Structure formats: structure tokens, C-alpha cells
């Protein structure tokens, strides 16, 4: 079983509510779920959708072709119908229009039923019930989810909602004569779900973050919301700053003060943090920055996705200094790599980045739950030091002891100007030279800690898809499809900087003879460029997408196969 649904309608119609009810329900059933969101930069109106794919096997991406479209308004039907498979169905609200929608569609008077059942607000539940009914699933798991979601609001409301679910479900079962979805009866355990932004937030909490400051910016705001929701429980100061400059400077102040600290934004907000980034580098103050990409330049498409900030983030800020950059491919990777970012940042006293994007941020993946052994934690802060303490002491590996001001006896002195070992401003050419070397020296050890790419696919592939960051899932699913026709594999990088040069070169060596295709959600092929500069590896072909939308695995498979046929 491999089914895709799209819930489409205006902003404000409850698309997200329906989407979340469904993914919870499917997870409860024990199904694997993948979902992503496509929405406009507005609060009401326009056209948004929430897409869900389910299967009894693991799945990692969305497909362009859908089995069922739930259209919450009439405008959604022409907009999305082309993507409905020949045997698929459109479920629409017949209380909105007199006109029939022809074959392959089922009209249900959603709003009318909702009103009859106690109010328009129940429409979402009616629609969700109807969708499950059309598919032929059991209603029970959904009823449980509904119960869980509304139990806090009192018995009466809970019951109303249950009735609405039942009504929608029954209506669909009764009326949908042409529905012929093959659904399995899942028996697996209840599954867990993890979203991209949530994963970064969880990773931060598990790494001991105690200070998070940010300025709201789509699609990064979910991290802020997540951490705010955990603030009291875990003693995390979460402060909305007046602007992004304040956010990063606060984070640096908090880290100087002795706690682990983080900020997050999207490209435009991060652009304002660039000077602060250099401050973190100059003062060797560890910080973690999540940059959740959206299409630029400037405001661009605020709620959409792109992978176009890689080189920007890698080279942001004046002067030369080491940094760490991870680009997770899944929520699970996002969690562990956020943890690794804190680990590296604290260990080497450098800024560390998580480079995500809207697609990953707003996607939900089924995941097995945490592997606790994978969480790295060691406290590198010095809590005892006497008056001889020097913040920027020259050491063999370039890492100086990082003491907490006020806690240690010695003074913790640092400066954005070039400074001596004590942290005091200097103009000395000699000290300057050594300080540059001290800072850059860390790169050696840092690079060793970076993992190389992941290979998946055929043992001796003819084609290798090369990607990074949020395209992991789409590459995985594409390889599976393409492999049925020609030997294909994928190489995915999520640990980007310091670039694991020799690991990358080794990975490509094995693939000699295969044609490398760079797959990037941007126009210029930034990662391919980096690969050439860092590892002298040339990718002969590239597939780019830069319309603000993510790759779909069925679409990508076709493109890869078309290319394969052409050579």
C-alpha cells in the first residue's frame, strides 16, 4: 500500500488541523507516514495544501501524484485535479456548489452536516471522517485521536466531535460507490512522528540549551515555538529579540556567561546576524545557529522552500575562522546533528550551523524514537580557575580553557578586537599571527569528527544521485524507483563543513564509472561547486529545482530516467 492524499483549501480553513488529525490517526494504526506542507504567505484566503503519504513500509518523501484530494473549497479542485491519479478521487464539499464535479469525485455536504451537528467548526472532523471512510479504513483509531484531542474541552464537545467523525465516515462509506482503494489492515505498533523544526528543538533541549533568542521568521519560527513550550519545564530562557542582531548578540552574551545558547532564523534574518557571527568567532564563544532556508533573494517566497544559502552560510562574515555546518536530511538527522552541533561548538569554541529548509521544517516523518546512546554530552566549561587564568591561552590544539565569569576566581576577558592570550586588545603583528593560527588550527581536529556521505542503492550503479540536506528522503525513494529500471544509487551529505574531503573522495572512488548527477533545490548547483573546490570532484550533470517547491520522488524518478535514456 502506498497512498497519497492532499488536503487543499484557503488559509484559515483548518487544513493543518485536518492534516495533523490524519497523520496522528495513521500513526496510531501503525502505518508509516510522510507529510509536508505547501502554504502561502498569508493568514486567510489563497490556496494551501497539506500532503500525506502512508504505507506499511518506510517512506521518505512526497509524490506529485495523489490518490485522494480533499478540496475544502471549490477553487482547489481545478488547481489540484491534474495531480489526482486516474483511479484517484476528489472529495469535495457539496454544500459549497450546486454543480457536480463529474467522475472520480465524491461530493459531501460537509458544512451543512457540520452545522446540523452543532456548528461549522465540526466541518474538519466531518471531512476527515469522510476521507477515512472513502479509503475504507476502520474508524476506531480516528475516534481515539478525536477523543484525545478534545477531552480537555469537556465531554459535550468531545462527543459532538465524535458524532461528526462518525457522520462523515458513514456518509462516505455509503455514497462512494466508485471508491476502490486497496488498503491493508495495518498491524504494526503505534508509530511516532517527528517534524523538522521540532527535531531541532528537541536536539537542543537534549544538548542542554539554556538560552534561545530569536526574532520570528518563517519557516524557522517552529523552533522558537517548540523551545518556548519547553522553557519552563527545562529552565530555558527563551526571549524574542527586537531584531536578529540583538538575538545573536544575546546568544553570545549568554554563552559567554556560561550556558549553552542558540538562535535560529531564515536567510534574511541570518543576513543580519553576520557581524555577530564574526563576534562569536573572534571571541571564540560557542553558539549554535539554525538557518532554515526559504527562497530568496530578499523576502523571496517566505513560506516556501529552497537550498540556496549553502555558500552564503559557509563564507558569511569577514575575516577567517573555523565553523561547523550540518545539513540534516530528515527530522531524525536534525535531532542528532543539532546535538552534534552543540557538541562541536562547545568543544572547539566555534559557531555551528544547522542548515535546514522549509520543506524539512514542515515535514513529518515516522521515526523509531531516540537512540539514547547517540546523544553526545560533555561539559567543556571551566568552573575553577585562579588568577592566572587566560581566556585565550595558546594551546597545542588551539582550544583554550573556557571559564565562566564570576564563577571562577580568575577574570574572563575577551575582545572582538584582536587580543592577546589574556583577551586584551593588541596591535602586535606577532600575536596577531599566532592568534590566527590558533583559531584555524582547530579545523584539523574538527574535520576528523565529520562523517562522510551516506551511500544507498545498487552495488555497481550506472547513475549516482548526489545531494545534501533536506533531499535525503526524496533521493532514497527515487533510487528505489529508478533502480527497478537501471542500476542507481545515491550519495547524501549531511555533514558539510569542515568538508570531509578524504571521506568524500573515498566514497566517490568506489563509484568510479557511474555518472554523478547533482540534485539540488537551487538554481546554481552550490553543492556541486563546493565538491569541485574542496575535493576536485566533478559532477557531469545536474537536476535543479528553484520554483520554491520541493522535489517529489515520482517526478524526480521520471527526470532521472529520462536523463538515463538520453545518454
Amino acid at each position, binding site marked *: 500500500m502506498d497512498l497519497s492524499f492532499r488536503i487543499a483549501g484557503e488559509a484559515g480553513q483548518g487544513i493543518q488541523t485536518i492534516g*495533523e488529525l490524519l497523520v496522528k490517526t495513521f500513526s496510531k494504526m501503525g502505518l508509516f507516514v510522510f507529510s509536508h506542507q505547501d502554504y502561502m504567505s498569508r493568514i486567510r484566503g489563497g490556496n494551501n495544501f497539506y500532503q500525506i503519504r502512508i504505507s506499511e513500509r518506510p517512506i521518505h518523501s512526497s509524490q506529485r501524484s495523489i490518490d485522494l484530494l480533499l478540496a475544502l473549497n471549490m477553487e482547489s479542485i481545478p488547481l489540484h485535479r491534474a495531480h489526482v491519479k486516474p483511479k484517484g478521487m476528489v472529495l469535495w464539499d457539496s454544500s459549497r456548489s450546486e454543480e457536480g464535479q463529474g467522475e472520480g469525485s465524491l461530493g459531501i455536504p460537509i458544512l451543512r452536516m457540520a452545522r446540523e451537528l452543532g456548528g461549522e467548526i465540526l466541518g474538519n472532523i466531518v471531512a476527515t471522517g469522510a476521507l477515512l471512510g472513502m479509503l475504507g479504513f476502520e474508524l476506531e483509531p480516528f475516534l481515539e485521536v478525536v477523543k484525545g484531542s478534545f477531552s480537555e474541552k469537556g465531554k459535550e464537545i468531545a462527543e459532538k466531535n465524535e458524532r461528526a467523525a462518525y457522520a462523515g465516515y458513514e456518509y462516505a462509506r455509503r455514497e462512494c460507490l466508485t471508491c476502490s482503494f486497496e488498503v491493508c489492515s495495518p498491524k504494526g505498533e503505534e508509530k511516532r512522528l517527528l517534524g523538522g523544526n521540532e527535531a531541532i528543538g528537541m536536539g537542543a533541549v537534549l544538548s542542554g540549551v539554556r538560552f534561545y533568542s530569536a526574532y520570528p521568521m518563517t519557516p524557522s519560527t517552529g523552533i522558537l515555538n517548540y523551545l518556548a513550550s519547553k522553557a519552563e519545564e527545562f529552565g530555558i530562557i527563551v526571549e524574542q529579540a527586537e531584531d536578529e542582531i540583538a538575538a545573536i*548578540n544575546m546568544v*553570545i552574551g549568554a554563552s559567554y556567561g*556560561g550556558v549553552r545558547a542558540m538562535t535560529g532564523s531564515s536567510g534574511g534574518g541570518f543576513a543580519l546576524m553576520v557581524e555577530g557571527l564574526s563576534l562569536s568567532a573572534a571571541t571564540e564563544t560557542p553558539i549554535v545557529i539554525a538557518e532554515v532556508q526559504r527562497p530568496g533573494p530578499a523576502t523571496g517566497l517566505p513560506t516556501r522552500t529552497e537550498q540556496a544559502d549553502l555558500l552564503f552560510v559557509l563564507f558569511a562574515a569577514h575575516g577567517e575562522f573555523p565553523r561547523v555546518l550540518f545539513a540534516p536530511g530528515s527530522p531524525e538527522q536534525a535531532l542528532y546533528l543539532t546535538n552534534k552541533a552543540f557538541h562541536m561548538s562547545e568543544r572547539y569554541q566555534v559557531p555551528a550551523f544547522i542548515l535546514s529548509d522549509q520543506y524539512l521544517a514542515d515535514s513529518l516523518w515516522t521515526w523509531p524514537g531516540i537512540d539514547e546512546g547517540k546523544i553526545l554530552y560533555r561539559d567543556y566549561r571551566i568552573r575553577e580557575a585562579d588568577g592566572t587564568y587566560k581566556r585565550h591561552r595558546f594551546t597545542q590544539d588551539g582550544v583554550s580553557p573556557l571559564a565562566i565569569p564570576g564563577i571562577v576566581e580568575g577574570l574572563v576577558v575577551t575582545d572582538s578586537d584582536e587580543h592577546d592570550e589574556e583577551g586584551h586588545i593588541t596591535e602586535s603583528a606577532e600575536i596577531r599571527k599566532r592568534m590566527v593560527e590558533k583559531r584555524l588550527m582547530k579545523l584539523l581536529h574538527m574535520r576528523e569528527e565529520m562523517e562522510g556521505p551516506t551511500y544507498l542503492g545498487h552495488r555497481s550503479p550506472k547513475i549516482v544521485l548526489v545531494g545534501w540536506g533536506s533531499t535525503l528522503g526524496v533521493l532514497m525513494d527515487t533510487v528505489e524507483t529508478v533502480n527497478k529500471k537501471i542500476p542507481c544509487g545515491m550519495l547524501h551529505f549531511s555533514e558539510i563543513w569542515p568538508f570531509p574531503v578524504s571521506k568524500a573522495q573515498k566514497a566517490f572512488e568506489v563509484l568510479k564509472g557511474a555518472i554523478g548527477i547533482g540534485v539540488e533545490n537551487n538554481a546554481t548547483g552550490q553543492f556541486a561547486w563546493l565538491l569541485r573546490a574542496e575535493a576536485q570532484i566533478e559532477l557531469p550533470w545536474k537536476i535543479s529545482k528553484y520554483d520554491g517547491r520541493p522535489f517529489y520522488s515520482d517526478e524526480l524518478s521520471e527526470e532521472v530516467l529520462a536523463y538515463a535514456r538520453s545518454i
Partner: protein
Amino acid sequence: MQDPYNPAWCPGCGNFQIREALLMAMEKKGLRPNQIAIVSGIGQGAKMPHYISCNTFNGLHGRSLPVATALKAVNHKLVVIAEAGDGDIYGEGGNHLIHAMRRNPDISLFVHNNQIYGLTKGQASPTSVRDLKTKTQPFGLLSEPLNPLLLGVAMNASFVGRGFSGDVERLSELMVQAMDHKGFALLDILQPCVTFNRVNTFAWYKKRVYYLEDHDPFDRRSAFERAMEWGERIPLGVIYKAKRPTFEEGIPFLLKGPLVEQGFDLERVKEALLGKKEGPGG
């Protein structure tokens, strides 16, 4: 390299007196060097912490306040002072100043207000007199000077005062009051720049300044009056005070003590966070 007793200031600069006053204030408060952290921006005045024995974060031009705010929040036992120039804090850092006043963290801001950009050689600052001609103001300064005290009163900052580097003793008193104040204290300090400011000289200030007497800083209307006074007579002292909760007081778990001392128990966090299942959206 940097001898703490050989500051990089011009002989005769008002910054020397501000340093003296600060040392005196620290002594009056009986503070050990490691109990204080001075956060500063970039400029002549902002070099201060290098010439004082204390924890020092000498950050970016204009950005001392966010750093200081966060530092105080994670370790509220520290006495946190921000040292800034007028260009630094009213120009580049103006937005942080406004919002620091709204937040009211328990820190003191000492502004070395020489009404000019010193370190970059004599451009007009936000407090420079209108029409000032400099190498970068070819038509004369086309902006009206910002009145920091008036701004402070309007923003309901919880402590607004003015000092003068020419009176070390009373300046140090004002500094002590600012540090004693629970909340954000803005202390604007008139400081002659002997090299670049030929208008607002020591004599210019000296002739005009007077100390407020019989002034109730909690009376906002009278604070507006005093804050507007600038010209023939320039008032010194505490102009305005407001009773407001501090930023740190609003963070519930800081009652347990400084955040930096609260420790991190990975096992407990794992348990609490992962013990129960997470739904979508957390």
C-alpha cells in the same frame, strides 16, 4: 601588550576621569574584580574595561546591550555594566537601547557622551549640535541632536541620570546609584573630547552643569521638564526613576538561583522529554 594603566586615550580626555570614577564606585560598592563584568562596544569610551580589572566582554560597535542583558539573565549574581559611546549606543545601537529600556534588565549603562565620534576621527554623532560641519557633514549636520534623557523618560526607563566627567566624586556617586538601582539604569556622562569636539569643551560643560536638588525622580512630569533642559543650564543627577519589575524577575526558574549554577541533568531531560510520546508539532 596593553598596560592597564596606560590607556589609549589622548592626554586631557574626559575618559580618564570616568575611569577614576568607576574605580571609585567599585571600591565604594566593595566589589571584587571577578564579581563585575563590563560589556562594551567599540569606540574610545568602550575601551574602558581593558583599563579596569574585571570580567570583560568587549564586543561589537553598538551591540553591548543585548550581550549584557543575556549575561545578566544567565548569571544574575554578576554586576553587569555596559560602557558605550554616544555613537555606539544612540547611533549604531539605538534599537537595542530602546528595547533594553522596555525589558528593564538589572544592568547599568554608562554612556561616554562626547557628542562626537572619537575613534573614527571626528564625525558628528547623534548628540552633536545641529549644523556641525565636519569632514563627513559637508552641509553641516542636518539632524537634530537626540536627547538621551528625554528618550529615557519617554520610554519609561526605570533609571535615567546624567553625570559629568569633570566631577569624579559625584560621578562615582551616580554610578553607585545606578548600580544599586534594581533595573536598567541609563547614565549619560558628559565627557569632553579634547581632540575632536571644539564645541562642547570642558569649559563649555563646566559653565552650564548644575546638580538637581529637590527633584523627585519619580515625578514623571517634572522629569520631562528637567530632561528638556539643555543649553544655558544642564542638570546633572538622577532625572527619572520608575518602579518596574526587572527582566530577570519575570523568568520564573531564576528564583532557584543563577541559571549558570543550575546544572544540566541529561538523564532527567531524556526522561522528561522522551518518556512520553511526542505528537506532531511537539
